């Protein structure tokens, strides 16, 4: 019992919260960037531009089918080899954005494909150009339908930030490891509390996803 009380001292808790903050920071930045890039890539893949769509398709498929851990290694060791200096934070965010953008591109493509064909036909026959129809008619509908899938992808992004411990990104899991490496008695209390922290963070997000799923099911 004494172990637990000592493990949760104010200094340790503050240290853990700093880690949690880095986790949130990396997640939010990666979510925003990867959403924008994923949206663009998914749309490119859908609209069938000669060659470009095929190339994007192959790149997206390859990245989606690689483990995120491998991509983290690539950015951490690969970017410096290309002459770009990176710290763990930038390497982690780059890896996350690359991986998640590919995952989101697939969600976006599937979402656009799920909009009924008549919508595009109707828009075109009302005198809109293809691009106008895409941006004003198709994408808004596709995005509302995609929200649950997007959110559950974001949940897995938050969980995946823990993989960046391997490149010593100072996030939640890494801070916990620093604390319990000082005293092996802290291992159990540390894993208990970070599991709870991750759980709260992800559970709120997945609850939101579930709520939106039922709400949107009624809309369509």
């Amino acid at each position, binding site marked *: 019992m004494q172990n637990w009380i000592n493990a949760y001292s104010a200094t340790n808790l503050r240290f853990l919260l700093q880690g949690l903050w880095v986790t949130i920071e990396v997640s939010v930045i990666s979510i925003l960037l990867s959403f924008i890039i994923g949206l663009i890539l998914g749309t490119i893949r859908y609209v069938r531009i000669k060659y470009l769509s095929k190339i994007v398709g192959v790149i997206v498929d390859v990245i989606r*089918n690689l483990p995120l851990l491998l991509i983290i290694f690539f950015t951490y060791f690969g970017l410096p080899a290309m002459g770009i200096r990176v710290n763990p934070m930038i390497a982690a965010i780059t890896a996350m954005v690359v991986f998640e953008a590919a995952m989101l591109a697939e969600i976006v493509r599937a979402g656009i494909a799920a909009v009924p064909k008549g919508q595009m036909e109707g828009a075109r026959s009302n005198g809109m150009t293809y691009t106008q129809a895409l941006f004003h008619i198709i994408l808004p509908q596709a995005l509302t339908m995609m929200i649950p899938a997007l959110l559950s992808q974001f949940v897995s992004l938050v969980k995946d930030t823990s993989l960046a411990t391997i490149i010593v990104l100072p996030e939640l899991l890494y801070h916990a490891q620093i604390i319990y490496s000082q005293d092996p008695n802290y291992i*159990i209390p540390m894993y208990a509390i970070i599991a709870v922290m*991750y759980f709260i963070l992800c559970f709120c997000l997945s609850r939101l996803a579930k709520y939106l799923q039922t709400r949107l099911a009624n809309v369509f």
Partner: protein
Amino acid sequence: MWQLFTQNWQDFLTGFWHTILSSIIALVFSFILGSGFAILETNPNKFWRGVAKVYVEIFRNIPLLVVTMFFYLVLPKVLPAMNGFTAGTIGLTLYTSAFIAETVRSGLQSVGTGQMEGCLANGLSYWQAMKNVILPQALKITIPPLGNQFINLIKNSSVLAFVAGMDLMYQGDVIASNTFQTIPTYIIVGIFYLILTLPLSYYMQYLEKKLA
């Protein structure tokens, strides 16, 4: 890069083998566990539904790495220690089973309620109806999403690297630090992963189109 491969091919293949082995073991057990929890989740009994829900929510919302590390570091404090491969595979199994439970549950719910009512009216017990009528129909619908879970499982098996699980990622790490050829090593590792995941992923896309 070719030279790097020919010099270390045995290590790469050991890793490849451990990745396949761990993925398949985890797939089999997480499928059994996941289907079990999915059936519990659709069970009329409130208590069992609650148990299944708690299990699924816990493992879906905690990072795989934390689950795996739990089995590698925390459990040996109470139970006899296990090696990285075992700990990693157990972690993978529990984590994936929660996702499979969700997939199978939505499959079960897509089978019309009339099916179950019809079975019960014809004198089958709940479990007989589940086993012979509902589950076979549900599993058919869930084949493509289950395939995608299996692809995720193969990719996720790279966390074995954190617990010295001898898998592809771990071997790649060792080779990279021995030869200092970091990027070529990771490219070879990536190709090995793609050999496993890419055909599966295209096959699942094909199946999805065919079944739709």
